[in-house]
């Protein structure tokens, strides 16, 4: 099993790290010497110094025996040329390329089987936009994971001091929810993911992952102390590509959007492409502007400018002024958890989003989706319950289930009803089972579901 990663930026690095930890031979091509030496110091992978679009360096990286190419350099053209070489000279079965240029958007045909034959085109801006939309669908959420085509969702909520959950043991929760089906699948505490057991306490500052279906889940939101209103008005800070795509998509959903951008020329451009969005031009972020535009009446504030610090600071300002749901894009991995701590509801790291999208794509077998939780070693896995596996025809509590994994949801075969499982729930063959598992519990989970969770 051998994978070739082109580009050792953040995305390439994280993918190489994950794959090399799973007994896959990883080759990495990178043209920057400093990045190469850092990579070879830290990871057990083969590095090649050179350009990803040169046949010579591809050959050095054993391309003839590679089963998968993942081209994630900053340059679309290098990624495309590498994929082109991979599909014309050597027939590599799977090819993934990061392409962000708008020019290619209108010419998607070139990625087809007859031409470049790329299996997955990944666009960081679009992926980030999708993630933001998912977050907006669950008001107040810090993280949102969609499984089973979005029929099951895990909303990650920050536990505030006044939350009804703070200080409670997990086993006491049924009393306070008064019969409502409410399952906490996992708790994120200081960057560590815990699979909670009955006696575990929920602490202030935790992020709890609550299982939800595709509806509005008003009862759950109300219980969590979040206003019931669905997202209807949004303010976007930053007229970046992400900002533009996001505004377009929100417009289509009928959401009212206000967009702030500092560059006047870009504002004019945006006002031409966007139809219902109010484009605001302001040199810098200030309180007066936010007050005039009634940021406190907005359902959400999303900072997506190219300036990372401005994103963080403007989000904090909006939060203080009373916007209930504040989301910020942060590219620096080390900042991500920090920003959550200082009060921004949700942080989207486009690079992490790309990494988890790629990992999800290359998992094989009867696994439908695998979503890597941002910066932890846990995964959400969705598998089909097989007739032969130990999952079916017995109540969940009688399974030998590992303590670091939990069945978070079941989608019934046939009617597609989503069930939040309890101890007495049984699983039928053909159901889709959603499992939340820490990385080292995955081998045990594999055994029970009798599916190998291998990569491709």
């Amino acid at each position, binding site marked *: 099993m051998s994978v070739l990663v082109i580009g050792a930026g953040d995305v390439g690095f994280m993918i190489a790290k994950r794959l090399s930890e799973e007994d896959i*031979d990883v080759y990495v091509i990178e043209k920057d010497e400093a990045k190469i030496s850092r990579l070879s110091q830290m990871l057990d992978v083969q590095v090649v110094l050179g350009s990803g679009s040169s046949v010579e360096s591809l050959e050095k990286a054993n391309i003839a025996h590679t089963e998968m190419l993942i081209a994630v350099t900053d340059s679309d053209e290098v990624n495309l040329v590498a994929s082109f070489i991979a599909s014309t000279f050597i027939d590599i079965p799977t090819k993934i390329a990061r392409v962000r240029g708008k020019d290619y958007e209108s010419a998607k045909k070139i990625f087809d089987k007859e031409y470049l034959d790329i299996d997955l085109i990944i666009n960081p801006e679009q992926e980030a936009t999708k993630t933001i939309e998912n977050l907006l669908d669950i008001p107040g959420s810090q993280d949102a994971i969609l499984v089973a085509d979005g029929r099951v969702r895990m909303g990650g909520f920050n536990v505030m001091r006044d939350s009804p959950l703070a200080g409670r043991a997990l086993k006491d929760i049924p009393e306070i929810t008064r019969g409502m089906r409410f399952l906490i699948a996992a708790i994120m505490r200081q960057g560590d993911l815990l699979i909670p057991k009955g006696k575990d306490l929920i602490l202030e500052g935790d992020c709890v992952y609550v299982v939800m279906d595709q509806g509005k889940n008003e009862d759950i939101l109300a219980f969590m102390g979040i206003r019931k209103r669905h997202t209807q008005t949004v303010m976007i800070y930053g007229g970046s590509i992400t900002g533009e795509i996001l505004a377009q998509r929100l417009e289509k959903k009928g959401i009212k959007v206000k967009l702030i951008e500092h560059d006047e020329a870009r504002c004019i451009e945006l006002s031409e492409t966007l139809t219902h969005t109010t484009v605001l031009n302001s040199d810098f972020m200030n309180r007066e502007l936010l007050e005039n535009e009634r940021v406190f009446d907005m359902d959400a504030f999303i900072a997506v400018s190219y300036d990372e610090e401005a994103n963080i600071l403007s989000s904090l300002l909006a939060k203080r002024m009373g916007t209930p749901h504040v989301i910020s894009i942060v590219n620096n991995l080390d900042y991500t958890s920090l920003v959550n701590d200082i009060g921004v509801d949700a942080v989207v790291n486009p690079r992490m989003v790309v990494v988890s999208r790629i990992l999800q794509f290359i998992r094989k077998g009867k696994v439908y989706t695998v979503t890597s939780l941002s910066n932890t070693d846990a995964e959400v896995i969705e598998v089909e319950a097989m007739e032969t596996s130990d999952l079916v025809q017995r109540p969940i509590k009688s399974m030998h289930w590992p303590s670091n994994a939990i069945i978070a949801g079941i989608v019934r075969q046939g009617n597609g009803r989503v069930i939040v499982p309890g101890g007495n729930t049984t699983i039928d063959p053909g159901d889709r089972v959603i499992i939340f598992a820490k990385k080292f519990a995955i081998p045990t989970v594999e055994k029970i579901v009798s599916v190998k969770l291998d990569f491709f």
Partner: protein
Amino acid sequence: MNIRLVANLLGKESIFIGFAMLMPLSVCVYYGESDATKAFVAGIGACILTGMFLNHFSRHPTGDLRHREGFLFVSLAWTLAGVIGAAPFWFSGYFPSYMDALFETISGFTTTGASVLTDIEALPHGLLIWRSLTQWMGGMGIIVLTIAVLPFLKVGGMQIFRAESPGPTMDKLKPRIAQTAKLLWGIYVGVTLTLVLLLAIGGMDFFDAVCHAFATMATGGFSPRNTSIASYHSVYIDTVITIFMLIAGVNFALHYAGLRGDVKRYFKSQEFRWYMGIFFLGCLFILWNTRHCFDSLFQATQYVTFQVASILTTTGFATCDYVFWPVAAQIMLLGFMVVGGCAGSTAGGLKVMRLGILFRYAHREILRLIHPNAIISIKWENSPVSQDILQAILGFFVFYTILFVSASLIMGMLGLDFVTAVSSVIACMSNIGPGLAGVGPVENYAHIPGIGKAVLSFCMIAGRLEIYTVLVVLSPAFWRM
């Protein structure tokens, strides 16, 4: 500094060395040597106790092996290997003091081949094979071997591997370190077996063949015979060993390419061409210089090629006493002691590649004086040498010189004569074994005072780990928080 993790790894290393002693133990049992058997049983016990002791105090280590821990681990692992590997020698009673046993073991693991024994043949077979086995294990690297056979030693990056492997750069033949380590050891084992077979065909006793094959492939130089290879008086054996010493001195990455059918790679390699060039020119010079010492040209060629190969590859076998050669020939040999073999081989010394790059660097300085505005890049193996590598090599050369001068000074203070003091330090730093004068090929290190043995042991480890690894650990900045 994650001391716990380092201690845990050292514990495993220790148990591993205990397992390696099973081979000499079974040899003892086979030859019915009861005293030596007891020494090895006690030795294995010591290794396992040390290992369990270290592991007991470092259970469940957390965190990763970062490069600081890597340096510390590698330095300590080699020291520990010497300390506990000396146990059977010490228990056997054949060595007058523990320092002597330690010197012999470190000389073994570092593939030096300097011995304190006066009558080697008096030793039981078990101890003889353990001497050779330490060399064979140390040749390709104790840690590389551990990585190859013990999968739980999951090291993240290259630092440990690099800290132990000879040469300024490191070729990773396969994407994973464990695979690379296995591959290198596979080639090593294969060539060693071939050599055992060839020596046995030449009439060498099977036990001796194994010992000599171990010592040759590791470029070590320990022999179970008092008069080393000379005791066989065989042109065939001399020739076979000359060829295999030269093979062991070549980068194993080239052997890997060669075994896969790409024989041209040898001649494309600049380092290989330089290495063979130095060998042939050296032989020609010494042949001319020693023309009055031998009866016939054939005999001269037999002895001179063997001796030059033995010194250049830092093996240290001897078929004749070159102390009686003309001074010019001896100085030539002293020069070869410093040169050593190729990077990525089992040989010691400065390495041909480093010298080649240093030579190019010096040449560039001259060109720059002639053409002040010229931009000249230094190339090696047809590709430019990066500034980092160049600086590392220059620094290496400086530290090598400093260590050489200070160690020679100490040896001089201990009352050794000039040539003995200087050549013993060079012979130990380059992991050769025999030097000149008082430590020449028919002499040994028994007469060196205890402090001198300790200094030389340090030189052997510093030379084997290419100085930086050891000096880094000894520098105060390393321990500062």
